[in-house]
C-alpha cells in the first residue's frame, strides 16, 4: 500500500516538472520537405536549404530572436524561421487535482484533450 502510494506520488511529481526546454520536432506543415537555414536572425535570404531528414530532429533551441531560432545543424549554428518548424513547448501543468476533477462535463470540448485521465 505504502509502496503504491509513493510510486503514485513519484509519478505525479515527475509530471509537474518545470517546463521542458522547447525543442524543434518537425517541419511545419509536416508536408514541408526542406527548411531554410539563415546566417543570422532576420536575414532575408537563406544561406542554404536543408532537407528535413538531414536536420537531425529534434533540435534544441539555443536562442530565439524575433521569429527566428538558433539551432545547431551538423555541428554548425544556423537560424531557422519559426513558422517553418513545429516546436514542442513546455507546459506548467500536472494532475494534482485529478481525483476531484474527474467528473462528467456538460460543455463543448475545450482547447484539447484532457490528458489527466
Amino acid at each position, binding site marked *: 500500500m505504502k509502496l*503504491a*502510494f*509513493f*510510486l503514485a*506520488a*513519484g*509519478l*505525479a*511529481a*515527475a*509530471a*509537474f516538472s518545470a*517546463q*521542458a526546454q522547447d525543442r524543434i520536432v*518537425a517541419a*511545419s*506543415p*509536416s*508536408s514541408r520537405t526542406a527548411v531554410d537555414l539563415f546566417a543570422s536572425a532576420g536575414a532575408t535570404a537563406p544561406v542554404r536549404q536543408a532537407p528535413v531528414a538531414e536536420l537531425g530532429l529534434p533540435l534544441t533551441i539555443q536562442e530565439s530572436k*524575433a*521569429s527566428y531560432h538558433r539551432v545547431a545543424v551538423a555541428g554548425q549554428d544556423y537560424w531557422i524561421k*519559426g*513558422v517553418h518548424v*513545429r*516546436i*514542442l*513547448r*513546455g*507546459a*506548467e*501543468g*500536472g*494532475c*494534482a*487535482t*485529478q481525483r*476531484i*476533477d474527474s*467528473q*462528467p*462535463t*456538460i*460543455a*463543448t*470540448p*475545450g*482547447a*484539447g*484533450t*484532457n*490528458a*489527466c485521465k
Partner: protein
Amino acid sequence: MPASKARRGLWPLALLCALLAGCETMPQSLSQLPGISSLTQKPASPLDPLPAPETRSWPDPVQDMVNQRARGFGLVNAPEAQRYLNGLLTRIKAAALVPNWPGEVYLLAQSSLSAYATGAGNIYISLPWLQSVQSEDELVALLAHEFGHIYLHYHSLEGAIASADTAAGFASLGLGIAYKTAQAQGWNQVDTLQASYALGKTLTTALYGQTQEGAADRFALHITHKLGYSYEHGAKAFLERQAGWEQQNDALELQKQEALKKALQASTLENAARKAPKSNNAVSTALNDASANLQAGLNVGMNQASFDLTRWIGKLTSAHPDTVKRQDSLAEIADQYPAIAEERPAAQAPLQAALAQKRTQAILKNYQTAYKAMEAPQSPGAVALARQAASGPTATHAVPLFALYTAASAQPGAVRGLPRDLGSLFDANFNSEADRAWALYTERSTRLKESGQRDASKRVLERGLQHFAVAEETMPYAVKFYGETDGWDRAKQQAQQCRQRFPRVAERCQTAARSPQEVAEIDRRSEKKASELTDRWLKKK
C-alpha cells in the same frame, strides 16, 4: 497457456474489428447538426469576414458559472487576473462584431491544462494555462478558440448526443461494470460490448467534434489576425503548447502502465504461490513456478492488449483531432495566405504586467505550491508547503485548504497548530462566498457520515446545497447522500425532482437513487444479458 485461453483472449479483438467495419451510420439527429455537412468542404480563408452567427437563446450565464463552481475544485477567485482576461474577451467579441454577447472568462482551479466554453457564453480556462502561455498572442488565441465554439453555436451537439445515447438502447445494460472487470482481468465479453457501443455512438460524434475543433482553430486565426496578434506566437504557439502537454502526459501514462504491469505480475505470482500444492518435490515446484509465470505473462499480456485497444479507441473517438493535424491544418492555411503568417512581434509586456500584479502573483504562486503538496502529501515538507499555500489571498480557497487537509492527514500524529478535526479547515472556505467549492462540502459530509456523525454530515451537505441550489452538478451526489442517510424512497423522490429541474443530469440522479440491492440486481442482469448477446453474435460469426 492452454490454447482455449489464448483463443478466448483473441476473439474480443476479432469481434471488435467486425463491429467496427459494420458501424452504424450516424444517428439522424447528429446528421442534422451544423457543421457535419461541411466535412468535405474546403476551409474558408481566415481573411474573409466571418459567417453571421445563428440566432440563439442564452442560458443564464450566472447560473452556468455557479454550476461550473460545483464541478471539481470550482473556480479561482482572482479578480485582477479575471479583469485582464475579460478585457481580452471584450476585444475578441468586438472583433467578431458581437460586442454585446453575454459571458465572461473564469479561472478553473484544476492543475491540468484545461479549457472549455459553455452554451451560456462563458469560457473556463485552468490556472496552468495562464502560467504556461508566453505572450498575450497565445492567450488570445486560446480564448478566441473557445469563443469560436460559442460563436459557431456548436452547443446543440450536447442535446443530440444525449438523444443518440438513449436511442442506442444500451443504457439498460449497465455497462459500467465492464470497467471493474476489465481493469482487473483484461478483456472480456462485457468489455467488448461496451467498446462496440462506445465506437458506434462516439465515432460519429467524435468526427463532428473534430470538425468543431478545426472550425474553432480557424475562427481563432481570423480573430487574432484581425486584432493584430501574430500567428506564430499566437495560434501556432497555443497548439504547440497543447501538444507539449499531451506528450508530457503520454509519458506519464506509459510510466503508470509499466507500474501497473509490474504490480499485476507480482500479484499473479503471489496468488499462484499461495494456491500451489505444497510439495518438496523439486520437479513439482519447478512446474508450479513455470505455470505461475505463464499465468502472470498471460495476465500482463491481456492487460497490455486492453491498454493498447483503449488508447486506440480513445484516439479514434476523441472529439479532438490529433493536435499535429490541427497544427498542420493551420500551417497550410498560413502557407496559402502569407498575410496570416506575416511577422509580428509577440505582445509579452501586457501579459507580464498582468501576471506581475501583486495579488495575482501571490495566487499563482500559492496554487503552484498547493499542487506540489497534493502530489506528494506524505513528503516531509508537504504540510509546510500547504500552509504557505493556504495563506494570504488564498487562505479561503478550496485547493490550498484541500492541500493542507490532505498533507496533514497523511502525516502520522497530529500536526502542531492545526485542529485535530482537520475537516474543520474547510470552514474558512464555507464562510467565504466568493471561494466556496462544492467538492469540499462533499468531502466533509462524506467523512462525517463515515465516522458515524450523521446529523453533522447532513448539516454540512444542506449548508452546501443552500449555496449551490441552482447547480445541477450537485444533484446526483445529494440524491445518493439522502438515499444512504434517509432511505432510498426519499432518494427516488429527489431523483424525480432532479429530473424536472435539471433534465441534463436526470439520468445521473436516477442512477444515484438506486439502492445497493438494486445496483447488484442490475449488474447481475446486465452481465447475463451481455453474455446472451455475445453468444448470439459469436454463433452468427
